[in-house]
């Protein structure tokens, strides 16, 4: 009995240590971080070991940290992260799912957008999400926005609802509802200008209906 009690105490202590230590950096595949739910055409998911999975039509393809998602021409797709954040991919889009771990803030979900266009809505509540492009980063809390990476890397942010902090190495500026801003290499993001947001997100209507 004593040895069982000691074992229990040791396990309890180990659990306490793990709790105090905090969540480990999420870098390995293991627990899905979300699912791909719909694809018009074919969504290609390249796992970190190089294996390719595909989704055509509606489904629930698990997504993991380190996955690269890719849509070809005439393909669009919709995914949802576990915390409710929805991301739509327009045609010709590629991004990698990553994260940053901080002892003080926990896990921040990172979408590293190398090309194409995404629409993002965070749903209810504040979320820790950032979308990185080659020249800028959109820091998101509770909001809906569209972000497009052009061939030269220039990034176009349109905020449909809420506020997005749009940062480049040359400065960060808040972009609010109904405005657009451009991020270019070697420059601070442009001053937000009012815009009609509906044309910017018309492309994703078929996915979210």
């Amino acid at each position, binding site marked *: 009995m004593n040895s069982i009690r000691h074992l229990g105490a040791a396990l309890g202590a180990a659990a306490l240590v793990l709790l105090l230590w905090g969540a480990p950096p999420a*870098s390995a595949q293991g627990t899905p971080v979300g699912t791909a739910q719909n694809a018009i055409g074919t969504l290609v998911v390249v796992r970190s070991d190089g294996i390719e999975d595909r989704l055509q039509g509606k489904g629930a393809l698990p997504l993991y940290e380190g996955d690269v998602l890719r849509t070809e021409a005439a393909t669009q797709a919709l995914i949802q992260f576990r915390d409710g954040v929805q991301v739509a991919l327009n045609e010709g889009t590629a991004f990698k799912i990553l994260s940053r771990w901080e002892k003080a803030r926990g896990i921040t979900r990172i979408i590293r957008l190398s090309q194409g266009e995404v629409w993002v809505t965070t749903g209810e509540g504040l979320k820790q999400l950032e979308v990185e492009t080659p020249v800028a980063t959109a820091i998101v809390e509770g909001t809906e926005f569209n972000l497009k990476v052009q061939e030269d890397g220039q990034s176009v942010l349109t905020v449909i609802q809420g506020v997005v902090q749009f*940062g480049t190495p040359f400065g960060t500026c808040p972009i609010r509802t109904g405005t657009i801003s451009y991020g270019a290499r*070697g420059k601070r993001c442009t001053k937000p200008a009012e815009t009609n947001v509906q044309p910017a997100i018309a492309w994703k209507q078929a996915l979210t209906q």
Partner: protein
Amino acid sequence: MERTRAVPASLISVWALLALAGCAEVKPKDQALEPRTRIYVANESGNSVTVVDGTTFQVIGTVDARNHSTHDLAVTRDGKWLFATNLASGRLSVIDTDAMETVASIATGTRTHVVTLTNDNRHAWVCNIGENNISIIDTKTFRILGTIAVGKGPTGLAFSRDGQFAYVSNQGDKAVEVIETASHRIIKTIPVGTNPHFLILGPDGRIWGTNTGGTDIYVIDPATQDKVASLNVGPAPQQIAFGFKGLQGPNAYVTVGGLNKIVVVNADAKNLRILEQIDVGQRPNGAWANREGTRVYAVHEVSNDLRVIDTGTSQVIATVPVGRKPIRVVYHGG
């Protein structure tokens, strides 16, 4: 009952002595006289950073990088933050040096290799060998704010004295690219030699580099953006630190992995020549010097130790066992 309430006079004396002793320990004057000096060693196979007291050369802790293949290090000017690349994880660990613990892990890119802080310490630039780019990270928020596409296999990175230019060595291209920091555009590519690796700003304001795949070191002049000198030092030169031998100097202390030596070169780009060679451990790699240039710290991949060299006598004055496969070392002088 009354006896329990009374405090014995002897106990009061002990408290008074303890209080006085405590006050003496926190005198600002004493702190100013002995600023904290530390040596940090990245252990690639240990996935950790060994922390060594810079005065006593005693190991005072080992920090788990919480990632794999800890490779390169950069410490902020105030000494509070240490950034460590992790080659296999593709991540940058952020270490709080007061708490001696990893407090953040940032996904930068495949095969994260070296990290260098901008001169104002606002950004950390990280080379990702597997993606042929540089990630730019905000050192306060730990966010990646952008990337710069560079040549094949970026493995070395240094900034000019005025911060206007960044230099990145690309192994696959056998060249160093010059990036204008105001525009993030590559303005020149300088052929340098076989498998260029480490880069550092020298005391002469020039950029010094090693061709680890060859046998030579080279010097780039930011005034002309040309390679202005080179010198054969031996097989697999790794890193360079600068110090003085008494009145003589500054000298470049080059770790030469193929010789198990540190080769001392006079740091005059117009007249590079070998002054002496110092026997060290097995396969020396990382090198750093203290601010005064009187000590050079070198780590050894095979003998798994840090050796402290007194540049005045060229003698190894301390050997400190560290973690498995130490690659890089940095010093912070308080």
